[in-house]
């Protein structure tokens, strides 16, 4: 029953898992060794992390559906136990219930496919044996699994609270890798096992729109957050929305764009979450309104975050642009103008929360000069440097990504994408030369910098942090000079954004939960009956059935 095999798709996702887990293990090891407040509470954490890692390997390398499911569920409950380290009971309940819901939906689909095709092995499954009437239920079940795992609305409620309340470093595992399990399932099930010809295009048009709507809403919610990790959580939801949307375009370029964005997003979120974890470690604070002005104390962390932001926003010359570019060219090729408008709209709005992230922490004025800062273990830089370096390399040589994905595309039965040079990225509809952009950028930057510094003359040094132009007066320490909380305030007054921010689908889920709880209390009364009543009921039951049966 337990079948594993090495495939390019599995290699790709497992490679990402390796990068994330190994770099984080180094960080955990360092902080575990060095300080009291570490993320590895005790040995059981080490066991659970290893178990989680193995389960991810099982998911990605499974060669039959049952093995896939086993890996999936073990991933769910091992990550649950790691989350309960720090999260509140309510949040961890939400996490496990949503994820078990995803797991059971997957089980339903697996059992249906297994039963009709007679085999669970990927290579042997002939989906044509499944009767047409069941195509929609199976697709729906798989979509539910994917939506819950990827945080597509309205199944996203577990994501935000979980990311915020889990251990800081584990949040990066959640965002970087565990969220990708849903993406892996999408590609595996829909592209490989089931195949596009059995899937109803209209359903996936709707899926594409759900993804994009999720992105738009999540982007605006991200902008209005004051907690660093919640902002990143909503950002993750938004980015995964893009991936879900572009994968619903059933073409080679769609899958390529989706894979590229998966790669970029994993690295970017690894970088960002570890950076945020570093700040929380150092200052003990996790809200923008309590931070600020850290750039000159921690310049390297600032630069790391800057690279991360440029990658997240998808701007040239770094690698983040490549995946956005591929997404746009795919949508242009397929002439999906409205989808493209929505994606670009959401991308542009993302600049705001990218700015908020870097401004709230590093720029502006510091709000707290008093609290002592802890020393950051060097290992915290490792995941960040890995992420940054790969982003730069991909910016310079964008087709390296294409080269990595080609084996996967071939294994899925598509034609590999040709590229003329590693410096150039060809999206079919259009192409650009990443090497040229990056080289140009560096050259011009250096040129301007030299102009700026060639005419150097004496500059007066700042007296203190209040030495700013402030409407003809000098602010004093009681004035809050950090605008960290303010980024995003105005958004609430814009009508359509305000509507998005004020409402939430949470109440519908809570209503379901209340209904279940109430019915529970009601039904439980049956089990508190006295013996006489039970006897009476039984007699009644007997008599009624007797009359019904004996005619």
């Amino acid at each position, binding site marked *: 029953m337990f079948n594993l095999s090495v495939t390019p798709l599995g290699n790709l996702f497992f490679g990402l898992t390796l990068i994330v887990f190994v770099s984080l293990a180094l960080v955990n090891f360092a902080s575990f060794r060095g300080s009291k407040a570490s993320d590895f509470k005790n040995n059981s954490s080490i066991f659970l992390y290893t178990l989680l890692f193995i389960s991810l390997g099982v998911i990605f390398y499974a060669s039959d559906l049952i093995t896939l499911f086993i890996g999936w569920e073990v991933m769910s409950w091992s990550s649950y136990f790691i989350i309960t380290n720090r999260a509140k009971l309510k949040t961890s309940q939400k996490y496990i219930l949503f994820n078990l819901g995803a797991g059971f939906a997957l089980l339903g689909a697996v059992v249906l496919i297994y039963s009709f095709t007679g085999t669970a092995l990927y290579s042997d499954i002939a989906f044509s044996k499944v009767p047409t009437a069941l195509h929609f239920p199976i697709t729906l079940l798989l979509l539910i699994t994917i939506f819950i795992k990827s945080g597509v609305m309205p199944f996203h409620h577990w994501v935000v609270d979980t990311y915020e309340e889990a251990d800081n470093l584990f949040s990066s595992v959640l965002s970087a890798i565990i969220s990708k399990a849903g993406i892996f399932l999408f590609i595996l099930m829909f592209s490989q096992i089931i195949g596009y010809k059995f899937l109803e295009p209209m359903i996936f048009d709707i899926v594409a729109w759900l993804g994009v709507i999720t992105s738009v809403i999540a982007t605006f919610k991200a902008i209005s957050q004051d907690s660093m990790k919640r902002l990143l959580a909503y950002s993750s939801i938004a980015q995964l929305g893009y991936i879900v949307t572009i994968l619903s375009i059933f073409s080679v370029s769609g899958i390529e764009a989706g894979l590229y964005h998966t790669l970029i997003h994993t690295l970017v979120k690894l970088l960002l979450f570890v950076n945020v974890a570093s700040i929380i470690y150092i200052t003990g604070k996790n809200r923008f309104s309590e931070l600020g002005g850290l750039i000159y104390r921690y310049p390297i962390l600032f630069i790391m975050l800057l690279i991360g932001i440029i990658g997240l926003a998808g701007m040239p010359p770094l690698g983040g642009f490549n995946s956005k570019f591929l997404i746009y060219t795919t949508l242009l090729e397929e002439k999906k103008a409205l989808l493209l*408008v929505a994606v670009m709209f959401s991308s542009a709005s993302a600049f*705001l929360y990218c700015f908020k992230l*870097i401004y709230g922490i590093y720029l502006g004025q510091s709000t707290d000069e008093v609290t002592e800062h802890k020393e950051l273990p060097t290992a915290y830089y490792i995941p960040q440097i890995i992420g940054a370096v790969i982003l730069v390399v991909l910016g310079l040589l964008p087709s390296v990504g294409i080269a990595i994905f080609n084996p996967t595309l071939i294994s899925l039965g598509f034609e590999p994408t040709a590229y003329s040079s590693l410096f150039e990225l060809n999206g079919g509809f259009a192409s650009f030369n990443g090497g040229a*952009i990056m080289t140009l950028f560096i050259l011009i930057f250096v040129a301007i910098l030299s102009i700026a510094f060639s005419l150097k003359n004496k500059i007066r*040094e*700042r007296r203190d942090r209040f030495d700013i132009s402030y409407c003809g007066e000098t602010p004093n320490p009681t004035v809050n000079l950090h605008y960290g909380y303010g980024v995003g305030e105005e958004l609430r007054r814009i009508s359509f954004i305000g509507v998005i921010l004020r409402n939430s689908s949470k109440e519908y889920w809570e209503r379901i939960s209340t209904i279940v709880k109430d019915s529970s209390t009601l039904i439980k009364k049956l089990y508190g009956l006295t013996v006489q009543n039970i006897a009476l009921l039984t007699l009644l039951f007997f008599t009624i059935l007797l009359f019904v049966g004996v005619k």
Partner: protein
Amino acid sequence: MFLDILYMLVLAYFFGFLYYGLYRNISARVHGRFGPSIAQSFFDSIKLFSKENTTNFGWMFYGGIVFMVTGAVMTLLFIPYLNGSKHLVGFSAYGNLIVVLYLMVLGPLGNAMGIGSNGNPFGAMGITRGLTRLIGLELPFYIAVIGIMIANETADISTIMTNQNSGYNAFTHPLLFIGAFISFLGFMGKSPFDVVGAPQEVYSGPATEFSGKFFALALSQSAIFSFAKLLLMVNLFLGGASNLLELVVKTFILFIVAVFVGNVYARFTTVQSVEFLVRVPSVIALVGLAFL
């Protein structure tokens, strides 16, 4: 090649400041004043290079400004000046319209970093307003650009220019053009969308702490960037230009229309800008999209 680039930069610098000077004069006449001399902007920027900075705000502040100029220059270099000519095309062969759209945001974002680092809350407020306004601005603009790209089945600006030899996009896709133009007003910093840098509003907004040669750099980048945006609009909607004279004429006409519109309207607040932009021009552009 290098000469080409230099030529492009000089042209942009020159015409950018020239137009700005003209803008000040025309606005003045509209207000019933005489206005400064047309070459005033040149004098201003050159003078500022020799002034000293007021305070040292650290390397990020200056890095931000350098970033901003780099962004402007890069945007410029990826837009071809002339239609169907080997000269003055810069690096447009290595990029495309999508690249240009993103490079347009690169500079302002770098600027945002710089301004954020000086610790002045007004600067940050200005940046936030700018970014919020950007949400509104880019919607109609991107709709129009997407429409153009799909209609021409390419993202290459030169090709889009050449395809307009049979008719300018402004006339074949008028609704898209109107949507883009209204957005363009905001990109150029003209009313009614100029709340970001409005001096009466947020104590000059983003440019609060600029001084000395970095202020000069900022002014230069604003000249270059304006010209780049004008160029982009002309290439996309007015068929580009086959020679320099035609280029000057077309950009000037576009610029003047923008100036006149700007002078007439009062300023929107950020919230009003976004609401207006998301409603009126976006819907116009969307309808234009339907007629592709």
